[in-house]
């Protein structure tokens, strides 16, 4: 019987291929859609993890020009700076447990990259927002002049990136975050200040007023236990001039809001597509069973019971479904992996492929869904058929 099923499939290559592609489509919809959804979730999760800060303070001008959520999706807030004296004032605010500064610098002229590269300077001593995430993937020490590059920066450890005519060796590459931070490079504060001076000397960077060593882009604050970040942010906004303090919660919430909206739409789309493909699959199996009426009648005539006939049809459908859904799962992994950057950019949300376990669960679910769909469709149409009078069918033929 098993051989008969395989022979029937091979004997009608066109029909088998059509069914195969339908199942593949269903599997692609389920698995690919699921992967996109879970990548968005994972992206949000990584964003949340990385935002160790409760409050971010940036120059008021930057806050005016920058969407809060783009801060972490794109990594920087543009060429706006504040003085160290401002940082000292911020530090005096009640309720602060930890405080760390970062400097952002944009370069259009990196020798290695076709995209504008962001340079982010941070202080490893006081840092609590990036360090934990850097630590795991750090492959070399971050001494003077050395860089860590984001996962999507096209440079390997050992190579150098030329920034403002300064050649900076790459100390290591970071793990992906699914955000714009993946295209940034990271260095210490002294390094980035050297780069800023070099940028000014080249005349390519003029918006810094004053001494680069006195300049800061953003201040990250962790509040003490039991202190409401909102109080700290409010206090800074009231007492320190020319800066804007925001709660990171609001950043996350904005992203999470747009994510859940998108998630709803995507889920609906996936369900709609899956239902549509399923219906087509069902129709295809029904049509096919109709077309094979005589063949089935012949088998019944020879003494094959309804149950065994249904088993044969089921087996055929199961073979096609298994192959089709496996191919669909493979293809969705390939596609989502290949286009994860483009997808993240297009959606404007952090996009990070889920863990192997989650991915495997998704793949299995899609496989199961497809395995269920084809044979179920086949079984229903075969059942309908077996009610028809065998003798009648054969005499009509």
């Amino acid at each position, binding site marked *: *019987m098993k051989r*008969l099923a395989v*022979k*029937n499939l091979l*004997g*009608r290559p066109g029909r088998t291929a059509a069914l195969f592609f339908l199942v593949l489509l269903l599997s692609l919809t389920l698995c690919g859609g699921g992967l996109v959804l879970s990548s968005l979730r994972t992206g949000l999760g990584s964003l949340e993890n990385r935002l160790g800060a409760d409050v971010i303070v940036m120059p008021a001008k930057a806050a005016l020009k920058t969407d809060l959520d783009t801060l972490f999706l794109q990594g920087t807030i543009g060429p706006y700076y504040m003085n160290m004296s401002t940082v000292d004032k911020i530090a005096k605010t009640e309720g602060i447990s930890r405080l760390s500064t970062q400097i952002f610098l944009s370069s259009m002229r990196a020798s290695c990259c076709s995209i504008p590269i962001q340079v982010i300077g941070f202080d490893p001593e006081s840092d609590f927002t990036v360090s934990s995430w850097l630590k795991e993937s750090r492959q070399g020490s971050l001494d003077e002049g050395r860089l860590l590059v984001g996962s999507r920066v096209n440079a390997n450890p050992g190579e150098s990136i030329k920034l403002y005519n300064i050649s900076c060796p790459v100390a290591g590459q970071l793990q992906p975050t699914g955000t714009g931070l993946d295209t940034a490079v990271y260095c210490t504060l002294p390094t980035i200040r050297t780069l800023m001076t070099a940028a000014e000397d080249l005349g390519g960077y003029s918006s810094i007023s004053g001494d680069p060593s006195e300049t800061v882009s953003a201040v990250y604050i962790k509040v003490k236990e039991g202190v409401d970040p909102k109080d700290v942010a409010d206090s800074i906004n009231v007492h320190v001039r020319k800066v804007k303090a925001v709660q990171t919660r609001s950043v996350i919430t904005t992203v999470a809001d747009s994510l859940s909206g998108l998630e709803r739409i995507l889920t609906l789309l996936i369900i709609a597509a899956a239902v549509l493909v399923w219906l087509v699959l069902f129709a295809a199996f029904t049509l096919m069973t109709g077309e094979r009426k*005589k*063949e089935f*009648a*012949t*088998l*019944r*005539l*020879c*003494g*094959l*019971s*309804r*149950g065994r006939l249904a088993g044969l049809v089921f087996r055929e459908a199961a073979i096609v479904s298994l192959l089709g859904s496996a191919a669909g799962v493979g293809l969705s992994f390939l596609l989502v992996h290949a286009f994860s950057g483009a997808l993240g950019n297009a959606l404007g949300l952090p996009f990070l492929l889920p863990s192997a376990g989650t991915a495997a669960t998704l793949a299995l679910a899609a496989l199961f869904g497809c395995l269920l769909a084809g044979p179920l469709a086949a079984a229903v149409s075969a059942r309908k058929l077996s009610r028809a*009078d*065998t*003798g009648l069918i*054969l*005499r009509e*033929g």
Partner: protein
Amino acid sequence: MAIVEFKEVSRVYRNGDHEQRALDRVNLQLEEGKFIVILGPSGAGKSTLLNLLGGLDNPTEGTIMVKGRDISTLSANELADYRAASVGFVFQSYNLIPTLTVIENVALVKEIAPKPLSSHDMLKAVGLADHIHQFPSELSGGEQQRVSIARALAKNPDILLCDEPTGALDSETGVVVLKLLLSMAREMGKTIIIVTHNQNIAKMADVVIRVKNGKIQSCEEQANPMSVDEVDW
């Protein structure tokens, strides 16, 4: 003892108010190993009788005994088993599966019948040893019908039921196929029942049954049936 016994068998088709008595209280006894020909005009009920005997249909009334077993009350699954074990069919249409080769079409019964014979031997016996890997569409009508005969016999059934087996063939090919069918069934000692319009075939039969309007008109035993070669085709 009779291998087949019909007792007051009726088959009534209902189309709304209209009732069609395709078979009307038929009584019949057929001996094992005999060659039986059923004659009758179109619409007489010949195919209905054959289908009932073949377990393709249940009678409306009456009982049908085959080898001492009542098949008129069997369930669909029991009928399938009965067909698998006891009857072989040859119809006017060859009913071959187009996606399977000749040998695969015959070997199919191995999966179904409880005591099948070698598919290869059967195909050799019908003279198609050289065509076993071809597809049905690559064969002539006569050759296709020979495949279906090989398939029916490969099941090694007790009874061979043939409903106008040469109906779709030209008369010359029809004779060849008929001769083959008869000599093989004889050799293998099968009970063979043929529905036909060909009066010549009747000359070779052990028993000739005439059916009309759903009733058995006559059931004659022929003491000295002609052999295949004696018949003037």
